[in-house]
């Protein structure tokens, strides 16, 4: 099972990095005379209404479809882990401040904020990524904090303190490995949430410019072609789902096996 998941994600990663080279056609090359046609030997997944090769666009679009969610996941994880450890270990005013800020951010109507920000500011996914990182982080901070709270009272943390280790060393060398399963699981969940949310933004017509090869955008742009070439929208939708599933399952597995191996 894990092998399958890793294979799926590695394939996606390869496509994300090298998709443009692997693509059999120029993903932007148009053939207006051809238009949207179903799969053939020349175009394995057919073409869209501008006569562009769907397979090439899928490969070229993997980068954009996966890079942004990865970015969201990385930002969220770095922020939430650092701040969560800090709040849970240091306590005091740092904790109070961070928790109040998290309370505020959690009370934000998430999707609403996202639509307003991206709809008003426009211009690509950059702002959406930032907004998502801000929206996802507080929840994760809380989780990490509560785990840290439990860990800091355990004997090994006491011992580290008694040895006079620097707090940053205790937090990142000693506590972090013990909350790692949750961090890994959260990272993958953030990735999935961002993947699905960004595809949703494209569906609403906010976000990336028309014509950008991107999975979410392809689903939306080619939805009208279901009768002519269903693959143009079904294939990217399926890819999003498969990658999201693989990431979620992997997160689940990673959590379980890391937890077993960990100190819990």
């Amino acid at each position: 099972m894990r092998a399958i998941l890793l294979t799926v994600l590695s394939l996606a990663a390869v496509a994300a990095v090298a998709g443009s080279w692997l693509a059999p056609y120029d993903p932007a090359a148009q053939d207006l005379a051809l238009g949207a046609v179903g799969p053939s030997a020349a175009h394995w997944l057919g073409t869209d209404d501008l006569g562009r090769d769907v397979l090439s666009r899928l490969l070229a679009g993997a980068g954009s479809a996966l890079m942004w969610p990865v970015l969201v996941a990385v930002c969220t994880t770095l922020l939430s882990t650092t701040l969560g450890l800090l709040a849970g270990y240091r306590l005091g005013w740092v904790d109070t401040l961070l928790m109040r800020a998290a309370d505020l951010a959690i009370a934000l109507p998430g999707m609403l904020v996202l639509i307003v920000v991206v709809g008003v500011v426009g211009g690509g996914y950059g702002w959406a990524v930032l907004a998502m990182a801000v929206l996802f982080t507080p929840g994760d901070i809380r989780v990490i904090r509560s785990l840290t709270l439990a860990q800091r009272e355990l004997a090994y943390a006491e011992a580290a303190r008694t040895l006079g280790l620097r707090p940053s060393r205790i937090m990142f060398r000693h506590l972090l490995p013990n909350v790692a399963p949750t961090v890994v699981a959260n990272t993958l969940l953030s990735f999935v949430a961002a993947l699905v949310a960004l595809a949703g933004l494209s569906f609403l017509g906010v976000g990336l410019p028309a014509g950008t090869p991107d999975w979410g955008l392809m689903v939306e742009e080619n939805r009208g072609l279901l009768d002519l070439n269903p693959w143009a929208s079904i294939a990217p939708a399926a890819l999003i789902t498969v990658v999201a599933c693989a990431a979620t399952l992997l997160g689940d597995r990673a959590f379980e096996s890391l937890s077993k191996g960990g100190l819990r």
Partner: protein
Amino acid sequence: MAVVKRLCAAVLLLGVLSVLTYGLLAAAPGGPEQVLLGGRPSTPETRAAIREQYHLDDPFPVRYARWLGDALRGDFGTSISSREPVTAVIADRLPVTAGLAGYALVLTVVVGVPAGLAAAMRRGGRLDQGITLTSLVALSIPPFALSILLLYGFAVALGWFPVFGAGDTPMDRIVHLTLPAIALATGQAAIVVRQMRAAALDLAAQDFLTFARARGLPRRRVWVSYALRNAALPVLTVGGLLLAANLTGSVFVEQAFGLHGLGALLVGAVGQKDIPVVQALVLLGGAIVIVVNLLIDLAYVAVDPRVRHKAAAA
């Protein structure tokens, strides 16, 4: 004291939200003018009249202060595109979204809680694996893709459900909202399943359950009366947050099923720079989240004796 603190935090949050939204909309290029002119050739007189009526030449703080003053007196202004009072616009659409959100929440809980519990009871077994896998898949399907799938399958191919709209009579509405509610609830039920399962498993390891089992209580009784009661807290939290999310974020489903709810209203209003509508919606969204969080806390007190006692002691 705690209540006062909470109220202050709530007011602060709503204030920050409204300034940010207003600022974002006012700073972005374009204004309500294009909507008011209908994208048609216009005369200089008309344009001047519009700028004056909507105070478009005033600096941002003045415009915001004017909006805030009116809002505090309960006047949220008039929608720029429909020229109706904003409160009427929202009141008109709230029942659709509220119905959808409530329906979805019921489905989520009715499916999610038993499934999560069943998975926890049979941990590691076929059933658990099946439920876990299904929930993970459900969690990963983009809601709009699922909407389209459901539309084609059940409304078009099978013809069991209507394709669009919200229906007029209560019964009609339930029929109309079934597919959208399923589309909305699928991902959320998956979250509840996971939450329920995790919470129940956590409890299973605890002493009182082991003790209850040792006393020879039947397995089902142990799970239902102990685990359910104790797992209720996290599930309640998730459920409340999901309800809040549904009220403000069902926009994909609304769009796909042609429902004229709050989400669809927001997307339209943002596109048209309909500042009064966007402002009111964002504030409503913030208020809903705040109230739901408050209710969750109250429910905690009711459900968990430990919290109740702690609260009494404090």
